[in-house]
């Protein structure tokens, strides 16, 4: 198991906001973590990144990467993992790029921080850009000169260049137009299939989860109410909350007429 979460409890004081008994992501697998706002999806991401304490939360339980425990690591040791072996992308890709630096300079810095030489970083960045179907020439531009979809793909390219094993994707397409979302989803599928990356895909959009994910866990009020193969959970849900969520997804009503 690439990423395994066991008995994870995240709390603010006495308030328990995440209470996950078991959640894992295998190699070359995309697992969806779906639920409404406030269900604890993003807090789970922060806990995996070892950043929950920065928002005042305490974390108990076990999070392992390839069998090695992460929760007992020091912040210094975590820095070797975070961003390198476990990468993360978020809803707003613009937040990952400083507006006053060229995109390439941000990418470069990330790669250099994790130990690449200048030439290695330049080569790895260009290669990763092509893997996410972007021209390496875009690295010379400023963030404002790229679209949201392009920036999100650059953020994914950083993870690729560092050969991250796990990608935490927290609502990565929620702010994007549907045609652009389609491209990002395609890139994520490609990463799984060709780079063998494991992806924890956090989303409130069950239709996107249905399309992209191999397995899905449905989260409500900090707990996972149901998990299993996405095709099964989303077509024959076992939990009534999953059914409620599915029933609320608006459906396109189309007619064959003129």
């Amino acid at each position, binding site marked *: 198991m690439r990423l395994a979460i066991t008995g994870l409890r995240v709390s603010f004081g006495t308030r328990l906001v995440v209470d996950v008994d078991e959640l894992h992501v295998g190699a070359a697998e995309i697992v969806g973590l779906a639920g*409404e*706002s406030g269900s604890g999806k993003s807090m789970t991401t922060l806990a995996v990144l070892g950043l929950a304490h920065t928002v005042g939360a305490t974390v108990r339980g076990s999070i392992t990467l390839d069998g090695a425990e992460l929760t007992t690591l020091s912040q210094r040791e975590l820095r070797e993992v975070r961003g390198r072996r476990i990468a993360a992308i978020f809803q707003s890709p613009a937040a990952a790029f400083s507006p006053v630096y060229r995109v390439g300079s941000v990418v470069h810095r990330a790669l250099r921080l994790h130990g690449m030489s200048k030439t290695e970083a330049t080569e790895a960045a260009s290669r990763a850009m092509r893997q996410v179907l972007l021209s390496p020439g875009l690295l010379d531009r400023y963030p404002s000169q790229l*679209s*949201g*979809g*392009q920036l999100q793909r650059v953020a994914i390219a950083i993870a690729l260049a560092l050969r991250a094993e796990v990608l935490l994707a927290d609502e990565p397409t929620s702010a994007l*137009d*549907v*045609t*652009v*979302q*389609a*491209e990002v*989803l*395609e890139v994520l599928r490609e990463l799984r299939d060709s780079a063998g990356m494991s992806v924890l895909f956090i989303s*409130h*959009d*069950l*239709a*996107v989860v*249905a*399309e*992209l994910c191999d397995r899905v866990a449905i989260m409500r009020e900090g707990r996972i109410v149901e998990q299993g193969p996405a095709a099964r959970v*989303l*077509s024959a849900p076992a939990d009534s909350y999953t059914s*409620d*969520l*599915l*029933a*609320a*997804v*608006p*459906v*396109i*009503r*189309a*007619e*064959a*007429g*003129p």
Partner: protein
Amino acid sequence: MTPAGERQESPAAERQDRAPLLDISELAVRFGPVRAVDGVSLQLPPGPCGLGLVGESGSGKTTIGRAALRLVRTSGGVVRYEGKDIAGLRGRALQDYRRAAQIVFQDPDGVLDPRMRIGATIAEALTAHRLAGHREAARQAGALLAEVGLDPAFAARYPHQLSGGQRQRVSIARALSVRPRLLVLDEPTSALDVRAQAAILALVGRLRAQRNLAYLLITHNLAIVSELCEQTAVLYLGRVAESGPTGTLLGRPAHPYTRALRSAVPELGSTPAARVVLPGEPPDAANPPAGCVFHPRCPLAVDRCRTEVPALRSVAPGRLAACHRAEEVLAISSASPGPAPASTAEGSPPGSTAAAPPA
């Protein structure tokens, strides 16, 4: 929406025959070099009815909504409300229009003052338009909260004590308080969770009949227009790519962009294999491509598309499309409608049963 000389054989036809409530003609809005809206004509009959404006970022859909409410300076064209050019409204007539035409935004927090109680926020609209004194306004605020499905006791609460869905209900109650005939709903559910979204859509479906509302529904979500709008216009780079009755427009698109947009929407039970992938990014509205603005990304573009701007023309009963190859697109769409229509069997026009989505 329906071109002259073409009448739909449907119950909606009678309504279409009447003078439109809102008539947007050749509207143009420029922001510096950017042509945000470039020659858009749309008509909205009196309520109850909905016209969906769909498109991606930069398509001009929000700007059209703002222009309809005289909230942006137009650089061309005319917007008429009940036959009168709204640009010429002054004094009392303008105040009347400001009352009759209301807007609901994506983010209710932009409407609700965090330091004002909910009841006071709603009552303020009534007193500002001199529709009620303070006491009467407070009483009506409670009734309006009940009408949008909230406990009238919420009047005493502050916005932060409500959920996002509840706050959006309050902003709808505030818009309704002054008894508008026209609403601009600008992505009213995009910030909400799926269950809150479904509840708001059901609320709009109920209120449109009870209040006889006509609305422009601005959204990027095709499922939402299919539930709440009789007619839909698909916008691309400030122009209408295609318009027509929502159900058939989505079931059998006449414009390649509509086809691509339709196929890009993930749907429960559909497969991404049927997807029409658009290459590249939407072009720069300050520098639109020559010919058809969609041609650089169009899978069907031919030489003519690169040089000649396609006119928005009638391509089927009730259907307009700005594409040189619309007839071929219609034929392709008939052969493979893309993801299977979800509910052809219950494909009644929205506004009858479809206007009341599952709660």
